[in-house]
């Protein structure tokens, strides 16, 4: 039963047997044995063990940043058994087997793959389950008579992966087909390049010693045939791109490449038929291969980012209950329109944005705001697509559907950002196009000049010039440098979507930091206690029943001071208005914020009030304790500032960034934190709503926002570069182009350093290729380049630029 797992929790904290995250004190079951942080984890653990799949725990990657407790969900999956669902999502193989694909939340490591593919052992009737890790989907095949979709979905959910059926996504299918076509082209190009290089080696070796004329001719012919296959087959895409660029008169990288390939192929063909002269097919084949590989790598990266975003679109339910006259009918969510009335039952997600027309319930807003505390909503209040309905069925009049919902808009933002070609790549393309115009001009002049001087060599020299003036360095190096930077960042737990980020971060601008969790530890602790000391054990006894971080801090404080254990309260009432009430015998104890106490009509002792003002001025949050209607104590709660925050901020300012704080916390607290970090008060904004943050961030054109991804999604999406920290990867990456899996500012510093060094590499690559090209063109124009030299120089420039991209050094910046 015992499994090896690195337990990095501080002493005194118990870890959940399933997810290894800390178990809050109220949930600890005395008497030893396995502890769980939530009911969901307990269910998952027992389910896994009951089928003998304990090995899961030895596979699990405890360092994965996306681990999370299973959570308590009451979502039902019975709707998946309906025929309308089956018609859309389930494929019938005709021999009694059915299959469908489910998108899963919460997959984070190889152990999840292992566990999910063992589904046949967990659910009777399932024949096969295959995971697609990159897309977070599970493809299940089952026997129609032995089990139902709802069983499968429920089991998967119990294991901790919330399932959603996959919508028919034409964009994704097109992307897949495109990737396959690219791979086929690369395969052909690679075979051609490899074979051509072998033939070329033979030919080069034959230059220095005698070669039978027949053999040489055959080798040249073979090289020509393979080379033409390469240019006319996989190379066709460049010709098409060039033709399109000419027609629309836009600069595009394909123009110079097509020119080089075309001229080289024609000249080579002519020389093969003539029997003398240089043939260039080896270089052409390798060039085609390198360029295609570069493009493939780049497009795969973009697709991967788009896939992560598509998960967002799947998080709205596929089936909605629409009112039609007197009855309710089940319809696919896509056909819901504005003005329809839909019924949302307990455990279902809202299919669209709207207002409640009947009933009242509590909802889980975590998809949008990160608040997983239940929020009550009643008639007339707004709800959004993706929110979970927790306690009661309600009717909703739809205000917005699909792409117009709040969640749809965030998805659109992210998707459009990642599909655009990064600006720097577009710029490099346009330089390449201008370059080719210059080269053609020089070639024309060269041709004319040599025709006048020595007609025999005129064509050779011009061809050599055109071959040698290869801008492929431009076409390949910039995207490659970006790709290398992004994948290196990923190894350091900095996840980047799209190359734009690196370019934008290389120049200093304004950077807004969130307070809680980024600048502070994110953990509350009691800093001071004023007032009645004897009530402290009772406060701790009361707060043990809450899971709020304030409660934990109060309990920890009492324990740290060695307070004796008090008897548990007779009755406890937790409110989501910011407080908790308990009854001890006949006495009533209230602990909470000032607003909470005021709402209960509690009298405020003047001394306690004065103390609380002092606490606020000191940058901490006051929590009041009242007994029988009168305040008797106040505790100052603070969130300690991270030790690395101040040096990091100083480093940022040294590098030229204007640093500010943007937080939803009380303005006094924010200003105090800013003061201790050396920031001027006008740069420290507190009390901001998510909308305020968006306005703040869009005020300057180049503002970077670092925030808690789930709460600040709108601001992160609106900023020039949004950097999300320390929440679950899925929720953050939806909104922000960058996600740091490590807490604190060190990751931000590394990212900025990486951006600068990547831009330096790109500029270096461009400089090198321009210098090389100028030299080469110059030499060729004067007839000083031997065609053999030309054939060697051309791939040399590409490989040197590629090599320099990989050699970018990445030093960890010390603040």
């Amino acid at each position, binding site marked *: 039963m015992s499994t090896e797992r690195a337990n990095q929790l501080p002493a005194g904290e118990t870890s959940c047997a399933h997810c290894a995250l800390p178990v809050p004190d109220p949930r600890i079951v005395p008497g030893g044995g396995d502890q769980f942080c939530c009911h969901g984890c307990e269910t998952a653990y027992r389910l896994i063990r009951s089928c003998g799949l304990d090995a899961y725990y030895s596979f699990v990657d405890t360092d994965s940043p996306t681990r999370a407790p299973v959570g308590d969900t009451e979502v039902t999956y019975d709707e998946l058994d309906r025929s309308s669902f089956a018609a859309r999502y389930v494929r019938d193989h005709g021999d009694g087997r059915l299959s469908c694909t489910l998108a899963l939340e919460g997959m984070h490591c190889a152990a999840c793959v*292992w566990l999910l593919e063992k589904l046949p*052992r967990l659910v009777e009737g399932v024949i096969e389950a295959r995971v697609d890790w990159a897309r977070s989907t599970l493809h299940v095949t089952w026997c129609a008579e032995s089990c139902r979709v709802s069983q499968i979905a429920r089991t998967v959910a119990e294991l901790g992966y919330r399932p959603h059926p996959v919508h028919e996504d034409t964009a994704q299918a097109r992307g897949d087909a495109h990737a396959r076509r690219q791979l086929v082209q690369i395969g052909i190009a690679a075979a051609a390049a490899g074979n051509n290089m072998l033939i070329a080696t033979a030919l080069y070796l034959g230059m220095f010693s005698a070669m039978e004329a027949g053999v040489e001719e055959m080798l040249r012919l073979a090289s020509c045939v393979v080379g033409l296959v390469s240019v006319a087959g996989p190379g066709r895409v460049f010709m098409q791109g060039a033709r399109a660029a000419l027609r629309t008169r836009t600069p595009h990288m394909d123009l110079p490449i097509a020119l080089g390939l075309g001229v080289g192929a024609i000249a080579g063909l002519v020389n093969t038929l003539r029997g003398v002269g240089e043939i260039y097919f080896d270089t052409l084949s390798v060039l085609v291969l390198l360029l295609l590989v570069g493009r493939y790598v780049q497009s795969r990266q973009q697709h991967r980012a788009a896939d992560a975003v598509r998960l967002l679109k799947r998080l709205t339910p596929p089936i909605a209950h629409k009112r039609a006259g007197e009855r309710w009918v089940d319809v696919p969510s896509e056909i819901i329109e504005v003005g329809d009335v839909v019924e949302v039952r307990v455990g279902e997600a809202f299919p669209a944005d709207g207002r409640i027309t009947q009933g009242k319930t509590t909802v889980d807003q975590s998809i949008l705001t990160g608040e997983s505390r239940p929020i009550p909503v009643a008639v007339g209040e707004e709800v959004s697509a993706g929110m979970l309905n927790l306690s009661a069925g309600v009717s909703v009049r739809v205000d917005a559907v699909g792409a117009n919902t709040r969640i749809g808009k965030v998805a659109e933002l992210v998707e459009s950002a990642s599909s655009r070609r990064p600006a720097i790549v577009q710029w490099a393309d346009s330089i390449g196009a201008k370059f080719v115009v210059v080269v053609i001009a020089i070639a024309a002049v060269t041709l004319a000049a040599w025709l006048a001087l020595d007609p025999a060599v005129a064509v050779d020299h011009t061809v050599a010039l055109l071959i040698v003036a290869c801008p492929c360095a431009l076409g390949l190096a910039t995207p490659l440098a970006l790709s290398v930077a992004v994948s290196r960042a990923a190894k350091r737990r900095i996840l980047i979507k799209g190359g734009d980020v690196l370019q934008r971060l290389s120049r200093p601008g304004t950077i807004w930091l969130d307070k809680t969790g980024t600048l502070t530890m994110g953990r509350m602790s009691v800093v001071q206690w004023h007032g009645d000391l004897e009530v402290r054990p009772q406060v701790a006894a009361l707060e043990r029943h809450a899971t709020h971080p304030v409660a934990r801090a109060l309990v920890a404080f009492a324990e740290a001071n060695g307070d004796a254990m008090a008897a548990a309260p007779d009755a406890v009432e937790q409110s989501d208005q910011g407080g908790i009430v308990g009854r001890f015998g006949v006495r009533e104890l209230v602990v909470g914020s000032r607003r909470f106490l005021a709402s209960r009509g509690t009298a405020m002792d003047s001394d306690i009030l004065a103390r609380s003002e002092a606490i606020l001025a000191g940058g901490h949050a006051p929590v009041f304790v009242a007994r029988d209607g009168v305040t008797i104590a106040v505790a100052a709660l603070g969130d300690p500032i991270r030790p690395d925050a101040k040096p990091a901020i100083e480093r940022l300012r040294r590098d030229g960034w204007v640093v500010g704080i943007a937080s939803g916390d009380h303005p006094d607290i924010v200003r105090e934190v800013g003061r201790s970090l050396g920031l001027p008060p006008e740069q420290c904004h507190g009390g901001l709503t998510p909308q305020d943050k968006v306005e703040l961030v869009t005020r300057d054109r180049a503002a970077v926002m670092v925030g808690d991804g789930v709460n600040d999604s709108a601001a992160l999406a609106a900023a020039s570069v949004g950097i999300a920290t320390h929440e679950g990867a899925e929720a953050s990456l939806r909104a922000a182009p960058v996600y740091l899996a490590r807490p604190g500012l060190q990751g931000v510093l590394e990212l900025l350093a990486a951006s600068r060094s990547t831009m330096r590499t790109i500029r270096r690559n461009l400089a090198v290729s321009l210098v090389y090209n100028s030299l080469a063109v110059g030499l060729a124009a004067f007839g000083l380049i031997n065609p053999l030299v030309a054939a060697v120089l051309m791939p040399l420039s590409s490989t040197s630029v590629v090599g320099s991209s990989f050699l970018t050094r990445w030093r960890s910046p010390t603040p």
Partner: protein
Amino acid sequence: MSVLFIALPIALVLGAIAVFAFVKAVRTGQFDDLDTPAARVVFDDADIAGPGRH
């Protein structure tokens, strides 16, 4: 006569066969998912066959 006259065309034909096999593999979806197989490497289980709980 150089053996190359025979060897070279054969080599090219073999290469073409390899390309053909590769293209077939791509078209039947073998290369669609390059990430999950990397995760499966660590598993040493034999069978997934058979439903039923213990």
